[in-house]
């Protein structure tokens, strides 16, 4: 059965203009997310996965340029002006920002920050706004929503802040949620709270999700499909089962071996600089299987099964 595609990204390139040259953070990237699906976007820090999310939302820094096509619910986002993008942000595409402890304004009451999101989604009047906020917070399992509304963010714990942020995302009727590193720097207890939050969100909306993370375990726990990024490009895409049981790309296999439960074996070398990318496969100088071909020619994505794609000459 063919399910509806929510987001289809084709040939996306995003680069930053710096005095040292162009930093290409996202390179010729194709991916799509179907309705109700959770796509995990995995990669190490600096591989461009957050930039991908920011490109979709058009909240990139001013020195960034992005080209290609981003089709969201049948409409092209690429040419849209900021003003038109604002109609989509917070309404159609919700975001759970990274680092919840800094994602709320410390000097503004939670109430006001939630109301802003509600105001953006329509014209609820004073009392109605409060009722709606309370409903949203209850959905996020807050026991005393009134108290949360009246207090300032510093009185909330990290997990609570994240649930407040998720409640803001819920107030529209989003068909896509982008969660950027929701578990970064969190301890085990808060992390399980976050997973719970995301699952709550999913239950409440049935929305598609793009989950940006470098936490492999977390991704395999919650995602339907996983895309792995390395040095600005996708190197392997597949269902969660395929990625976990049958990883093909040497980098992904290396990632699994580097997990604590598999013996913490590091991958030799470091990721290439995004300014001077190597010729050929971007992983070749760290790859044990690398051949002459890998050094010279850049591999394309190739399908190994209907749902599994990989970018490697020697799979």
């Amino acid at each position, binding site marked *: 059965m063919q399910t509806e595609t929510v987001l289809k990204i084709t040939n996306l390139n995003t680069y930053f203009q710096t005095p040292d040259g162009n930093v290409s953070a996202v390179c010729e990237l194709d991916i799509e997310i179907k309705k109700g699906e959770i796509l995990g976007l995995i990669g190490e820090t600096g591989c461009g996965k957050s930039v991908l999310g920011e490109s979709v939302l058009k*909240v990139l820094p001013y020195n960034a340029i992005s080209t290609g096509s981003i089709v969201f619910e049948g409409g092209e986002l690429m040419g849209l002006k900021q003003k038109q993008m604002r109609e989509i942000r*917070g309404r159609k595409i919700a975001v759970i*920002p990274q680092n919840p402890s800094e994602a709320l304004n*410390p000097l503004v009451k939670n109430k006001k920050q939630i109301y*802003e999101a509600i105001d953006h989604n329509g014209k609820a009047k004073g009392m109605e706004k409060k009722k709606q906020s309370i409903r949203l917070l209850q959905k996020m399992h807050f026991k005393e929503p009134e108290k949360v509304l009246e207090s300032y963010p510093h009185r909330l714990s990290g997990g609570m802040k994240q649930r407040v942020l998720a409640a803001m995302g819920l107030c529209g009727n989003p068909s896509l949620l982008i969660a950027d590193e929701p578990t970064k720097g969190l301890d085990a207890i808060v992390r399980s709270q976050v997973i719970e939050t995301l699952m709550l969100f999913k239950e409440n909306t049935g929305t598609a999700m793009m989950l940006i993370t470098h936490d492999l375990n977390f991704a395999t726990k919650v995602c339907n499909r996983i895309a792995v990024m390395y040095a600005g490009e996708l190197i392997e895409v597949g269902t969660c089962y395929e990625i976990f049981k049958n990883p093909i790309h040497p980098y992904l296999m290396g990632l699994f071996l580097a997990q604590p439960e598999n013996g913490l074996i590091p991958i030799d070398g470091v990721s290439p600089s995004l300014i001077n990318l190597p010729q050929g496969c971007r992983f070749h100088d760290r790859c044990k299987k690398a051949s002459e071909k890998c050094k010279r020619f850049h591999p394309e994505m190739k399908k190994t099964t209907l749902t599994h794609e990989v970018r490697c000459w020697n799979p």
Partner: protein
Amino acid sequence: MKKIIINRMLMIVPTVITIAFLAFSIMYFSPGNPAEILMRYRNPEGGTDPAALAHYEEMLGLDDPFFTQFENWFTGVLGGDFGESFKTGNPVNEEFFYRIGYTLMLSFTGLAFSLLIGITLGFLSAEFKDSWIDNFLRFTQSIKMSIPSFWLALFFIYVFATQLKWFSAFGYNSPKDLILPGLVLGLSNSSRMVRLVRTCILEEKSSGYVYTARVKGLSEIQIFFKHILKNITLPIITLTGVSLVSMIGGSLIIENIFGLPGIGTYLVSAIVAKDYPVSMGFLFAYGIIIVLINLFIDVLYQFVDPRVRDGANAEI
């Protein structure tokens, strides 16, 4: 919150006593005999006859021990009596209240200009970061920082008073006469403000809550007024307090050039002339003003930052 404010006010008491003690002892231990100086003022031709000198010392209470003298002076001060000027015989507090008005008017005009210039230019500089506007503003700021304020004052007098005749060059007749000195004072204090505002806005713009506001769908204007402005208020308040203190104490040159009868000029001439009651009284009152400004800023923090109100660690 009331409790915290009362607490802060109680903490002022030891500070006030310390200031009074320091103001008194600085003058007490500085060389020169006040009785002798007073004698010379009263009777410039007469010599320093030891018997008359002893009479004067007794009259002024200068033969009392140090702590008795301090006590006498301080009880007077607490009752609002700062003594009389040796030179003019006028009560010191009258003189002070007459002059502090001009100094405060000048300082607040200067502060208003420095805030106006600082926030506007800082905002422009941050908003158009790395464009020609930003580069131009940063260039002019660095030039302005190296211009001494007396030069700026003379230049403004030449242009706006002598040539254009928009303002009077000297003395105080109407509030309009505060504009030129206030502008000079504000300009020479605004460089720090411009840089602070620029840095703060840029820092806040890359912060997490601004990102949240953006992805929530708020416009840049909404983000600036509803989120960023509030967060840059704290550092601006801090710098405003520091600037105000330095303007009240340091507007001496400007007061002199523009002929404003503020405390700066008067205090310096009193110190030079060893007019002890005036020097001690003015030093003490100036100290109290600084303490009050700091108290006011502390209280203002309580209002702006809920983290300070809760006693949590605010990142200031």
